[in-house]
């Protein structure tokens, strides 16, 4: 293998699995260390800079970081990264004075369609630079789907208010209750740029017999959630069926439980394990006595002269073809009719752009989605940018934030007369954490604690009040325990071959058998000859040559605990623990820095 180029900005970034997996590349270990130190406001600000909505995301994020967390490969469960983010938000001091201020106006006007996470991110990045940002939303208050679709018992209004206000107070012109029905008209108002962050607002229909006749008791999930959220709907029938297996279905069933649904069932086509809902959301639903029935395909709504009485399902089973693709085929069992009073349909969301006229210069693809550049988020109209669910279909908040940052950068570059396709490289800092002979600036003693559970409100009380937040969040003691579980993967093991005397001290002390000194070979061969062979090609091998015996040092990054014992036991300082920080480029970051201090 070729020696590893650790100065490539991505190399160490990938080692910080959580940060690499986060669409916004939040420096997770950095803020978790701050939480452990009790510096909640600092931890909050790191989050705020990168993901804009720490309090909201700390309750609702889809957490792509957690399945990636190295801890999950070392023991049973990853670090509760998401809920630690909430800790930073819950325990911070007043941080208003640390927020950016509206810059002197530069005379450029930006229109943002939709007041959800994508638009608000764009506005936050651009307003301090002097842009005049106008945000339009059909609802009276900002937040978009975060406010309309996520139940209050998961995300209280106060949290949304606080974090949307941080942005709106940057001098943003928020036009609530103003729905944009014509892009053409908006374009005619001569904005310098338009950002479309209008989400994926349409719930998918389930067009099966009985749908029209029994319509009074069949509700589209996201529309129903939104009506509940704004207080237009306050009760539902006693027996409720929720169709669909995504997170919206989980929100629907739990909401129904609080509005009079005593017998609420979720019924899904697929198997339980293949459901789209996050495992923890399924757990929460099951905890509230909501059974999830699987392998049942709805075939008809049953009604008595227009009064819904039940849903008939065909029983299916999963079969896999030669290519491993799953097909649901009838199992041969008789159809089953499940009685109910109301049905909530949560079988997916769609984009809809009836308000974009054909002559606006925006090209659409065959799936009726706008053609959007995945890097710049530009559409075929050079003034119009897309982001969030409006760009590539339904994802989640953290993706919308990531899109927002990139779109804001494009808008800023475009309006500064630069080429939006030239994306500046992030700035990377790598610095030694050595404080003494065996002292490091971080706590390298590995905690063996299991993942701490987040305390929940008592079920009986929680189910009575739709606004009572179910999760109470970690207290400081639990938060400290959970923070200590973080392996500090951003504190990198950096090897300097010319200093190495090949004494094997690092090999002997490494608790995870990560380090091997051996003859070089191609990657497959080398992976087999490691002290603990590693078949996981997605995890890098760190290879260094230039040793006296002609061997190479090969370190498998996969399960390294970053405990620093290799560096502690190294007599010559060939190993060092160096903290890697990457500064993602946002609009208005200082120009691309060439001074990158890698090891």
């Amino acid at each position: 293998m070729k020696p590893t180029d650790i100065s490539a900005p991505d190399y160490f970034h990938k080692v910080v699995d959580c940060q690499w997996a986060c669409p916004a590349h939040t420096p997770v270990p950095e803020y978790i260390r701050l939480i452990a130190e009790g510096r909640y406001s600092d931890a909050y600000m790191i989050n705020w800079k990168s993901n804009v909505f720490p309090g909201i995301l700390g309750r609702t994020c889809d957490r792509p970081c957690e399945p990636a967390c190295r801890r999950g490969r070392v023991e049973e469960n990853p670090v509760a990264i998401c809920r630690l983010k909430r800790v930073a938000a819950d325990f911070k001091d007043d941080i208003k004075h640390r927020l950016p201020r509206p810059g002197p106006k530069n005379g450029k006007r930006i229109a943002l369609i939709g007041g959800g996470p994508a638009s608000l991110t764009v506005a936050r990045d651009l307003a301090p630079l002097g842009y005049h940002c106008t945000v339009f939303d059909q609802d009276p208050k900002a937040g978009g789907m975060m406010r309309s679709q996520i139940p209050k018992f998961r995300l209280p209004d106060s949290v949304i208010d606080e974090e949307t206000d941080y942005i709106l107070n940057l001098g943003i012109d928020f036009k609530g209750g103003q729905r944009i029905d014509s892009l053409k008209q908006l374009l005619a108002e001569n904005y310098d740029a338009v950002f479309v962050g209008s989400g994926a607002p349409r719930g998918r229909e389930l067009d099966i017999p009985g749908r029209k006749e029994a319509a009074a008791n069949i509700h589209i999930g996201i529309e129903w959630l939104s009506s509940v959220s704004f207080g237009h709907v306050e009760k539902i029938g006693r027996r409720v069926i929720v169709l669909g297996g995504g997170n919206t279905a989980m929100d629907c069933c739990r909401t129904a439980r609080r509005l009079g649904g005593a017998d609420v069932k979720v019924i899904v086509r697929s198997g339980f394990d293949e459901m789209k809902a996050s495992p923890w959301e399924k757990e929460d639903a099951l905890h509230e006595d909501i059974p999830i029935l699987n392998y049942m395909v709805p075939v008809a709504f049953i009604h008595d002269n227009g009064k819904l009485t039940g849903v008939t399902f065909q029983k299916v089973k999963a079969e896999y073809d030669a290519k491993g693709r799953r097909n649901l085929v009838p199992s041969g069992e008789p159809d089953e009719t499940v009685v109910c009073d109301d049905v909530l349909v949560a079988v997916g969301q769609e984009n809809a752009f009836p308000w974009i006229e054909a002559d606006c210069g925006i090209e659409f693809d065959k799936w009726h989605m706008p053609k959007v550049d995945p890097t710049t988020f530009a559409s075929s109209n050079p003034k119009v940018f897309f982001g969030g669910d409006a760009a590539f279909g339904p994802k989640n908040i953290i993706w919308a934030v990531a899109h927002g940052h990139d779109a804001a950068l494009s808008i800023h570059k475009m309006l500064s007369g630069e080429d939006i396709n030239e994306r500046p490289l992030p700035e990377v800092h790598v610095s030694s954490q050595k404080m003494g002979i065996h002292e490091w600036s971080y706590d390298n003693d590995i905690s063996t604690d299991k993942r701490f559970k987040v305390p929940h409100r008592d079920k009986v009380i929680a189910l009575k009040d739709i606004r009572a937040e179910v999760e109470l969040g970690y207290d400081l003691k639990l938060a400290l325990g959970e923070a200590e579980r973080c392996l500090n993967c951003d504190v990198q093991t950096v090897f300097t071959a010319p200093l190495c005397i090949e004494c094997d001290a690092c090999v002997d002390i490494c608790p995870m058998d990560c380090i091997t000194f051996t003859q070089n070979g191609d990657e497959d061969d080398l992976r087999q000859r490691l002290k603990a062979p590693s078949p996981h090609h997605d995890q890098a091998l760190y290879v260094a040559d230039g040793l006296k015996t002609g061997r190479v040092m090969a370190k498998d990054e996969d399960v390294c605990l970053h405990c620093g014992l290799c560096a502690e036991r190294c007599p010559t300082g060939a190993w060092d623990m160096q903290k890697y920080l990457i500064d993602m480029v946002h609009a208005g970051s200082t120009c691309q820095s060439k001074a990158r201090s890698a090891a």
Partner: protein
Amino acid sequence: MTYIAKPKFHHPGLKKNELGYTHRDYEGKISTLCAGCGHDSITASIIEACYELSIEPHRVAKISGIGCSSKTPDYFLGNSHGFNSVHGRMPSVLTGANLANRDLIYLGVSGDGDSASIGFGQFAHSIRRGVNMTYIVENNGVYGLTKGQFSATADRGSKSKKGVVNTDNAIDLVAIALQLGATFVARSFSGDKTQLVPLIAAAIQHKGASFIDVISPCIAFNNHAGSTKSFDYVREHNDAVNRLDVLVGREPIHVDYAPGTVQVVEQHDGSRIALRKLDADYDAHDRLGAMTFLQKHAAKGQIVTGLLYVDPEAEDLHAHLNTVDTPLNALEAKTLCPGSAALDKINASLR
């Protein structure tokens, strides 16, 4: 030294031996020796050898004297018996323990000060008696604990860290062990585990006095230019006569070396080692030849390593003394002390 304990987590793909243990289960406490000490590599090699042989930790007694080397039994086999004895007295404590309980595996761990100076006589007598043990000397050529004076194994002409030249002749423990009749004699280097681990495993399986001299650089006081026990010097002057593979169990041997270069040695207990010759002229069954070879190469400044001599038909002290098969500590008082009538009988036979 390191202040934190070695984390309990281990690699999820770690292999287990016949007993279901990983090599991590053979560890002891975290080492308090200097970072990079050769002794820690020997510790790791002992751990590896015991793991590979699937030795039950409670069947091992590790006995040491005083010195950096003699601290190391604390760092391996944390679930075995241990005795940290008086300076240089490991061999007699080990001999006594062995007499009382012949069923245990005895690991004697010592250093060049412990065995070549204060305990030189003890070393000699345990070897000449053929105590069934694995006697490992962690040989760094200096007194590390007292800041680097030459020890008795330091080569004449080698330089101390301060630049002083050693004018005394060196004791070659391997030569002495050969002369005193050790039935398994090897030399190795802490920086070469592929050689050291099988040597330790073979020595543990050998029934009789096994002696391994392991050159182990002292990072703090004997790893400089002018030292003959530094990493660089040993790597440059290492003349390995053979390589071992220890064959556990009775599975067929896969020989993928050139014909004539591999010799399978079957020991008394049925255990086997495959000896891969690197030097075609070297015969590991020839005690006299080994002594000559050793002296010739030493004169050329070469450090001969490998399995230097093995007597597969070796006998141990218990065979010499014709003791009972049952360990003495397992015999009842009545058997151990048969009473005055038996004594009278013996006395009568001597009149």
